[in-house]
């Protein structure tokens, strides 16, 4: 009987040691530290709009706005028809043309910038194919930044997916 009690004693000791070792660390009292605040005020900058020119818009009978499907840069048949007229006029009376591409508000802004540009490029390519000199045509995208119609519905969105010929 004596040896088994030794064994009990040992295991009890063992467990006691185990638990003593596992007790949580004592909290260390930190010296209260001090933090100082930096001055981080913000100043306003100035824009330089000297480079903007006013583009004179000629009145034409054909449509100057061409519409597209969501996430697409394919010209619709009615767009082509109107653009044929424009290309004829531009070849007879060359002038600088600005194609402004747009997208509706859905999706991300920079991606929509690229989409707007793609659409404007599609219009440019068509005109160039018809014989208009590429040097006359400037392509610029506004992405979703310059909406024509406001509202979060299909109608408004449809009106915003466009290229404007100016």
């Amino acid at each position, binding site marked *: 009987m004596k*040896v*088994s009690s030794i*064994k009990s004693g040992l295991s009890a*000791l*063992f467990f006691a*040691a185990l638990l003593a070792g596992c*007790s*949580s660390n004592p909290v260390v009292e930190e010296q209260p530290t001090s933090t100082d605040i930096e001055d981080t005020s913000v100043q306003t900058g100035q824009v330089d709009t000297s480079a903007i020119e006013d583009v004179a818009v000629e009145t034409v009978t054909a449509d100057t706005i061409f519409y597209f499907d969501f996430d697409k840069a394919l010209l619709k048949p009615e767009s082509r028809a109107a653009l044929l007229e424009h290309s004829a006029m531009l070849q007879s009376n060359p002038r600088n043309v600005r194609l402004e591409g747009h997208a509706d508000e859905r999706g991300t802004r920079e991606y929509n910038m690229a989409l707007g540009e793609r659409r404007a490029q599609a219009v440019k390519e068509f005109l160039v194919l018809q014989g208009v000199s590429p040097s006359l045509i400037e392509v610029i995208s506004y992405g979703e930044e310059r909406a024509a119609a406001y509202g979060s519905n299909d109608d408004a969105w449809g009106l915003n997916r466009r290229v404007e010929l100016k």
Partner: protein
Amino acid sequence: MGNSLSYSVAILLSLVLHIALVGALFIDWQPESKRVIMQPQYIEAKLVELAPKKKAPASKPKAPPKKPKIDLAKKKREEKKRLAKIAAQKKAAEKKRLEQERLTKAEAERKERERQEELRRQQQEAERLRKESEFAEALAAEQALINAQEDEQAANSYRQLIQQRLSENWSRPPSARLGMETLIRIRLVPTGRVVGVTVLKSSGDSAFDRSVEQAALKAEQFEELQAMDPALFEKKFRQVDVAFSPEDLRL
């Protein structure tokens, strides 16, 4: 954080100690327990041989005293009668003796039989007593087992209560992740009040560990434990170990 050298020394020492103790536990300390056979109580019976009764000394036919020859035939007849009588007597005595012997033998045998039977009876009695005590022991053991099971069942229902209360009070920090685990030891008093919480095993995330400690401290008191059998409380609920490991998190 701490002195990494003292840490490694401490770890080494602790490791050696643990191995030593574990080794000690592995060694079979206990000698082969001898089966102690309990000798049944019985009376030492000693066979007593009944000494046969001393035979009546056969009367030696004495030499007849010298007598005048009187009636020889009568004398012869008388002698004959007398001899016959003696023979008869002898025979009878012999018979008696044999009978006596037989009786004695029978008696002895009977006594022997009785003794054997007594012995057997006593052995059987001892056997019966032993069986009875064994049975009583087994019964007691079974009862103890049933008691232990009942205790365990009762304990389990209290454990479930504690688990639920802790779960209700456990608010996990944003750094909590599936797979983290903290083990704490909660010290209770019979009123069910939490009087101490110690982290036995950290999850490695201090905010997680703290949330576990807070849960135990917020639970504050398990009043239901007051209804527990005090012996059961002492045995299983003075200290309660709880492991917290979330399984319901998204991350």
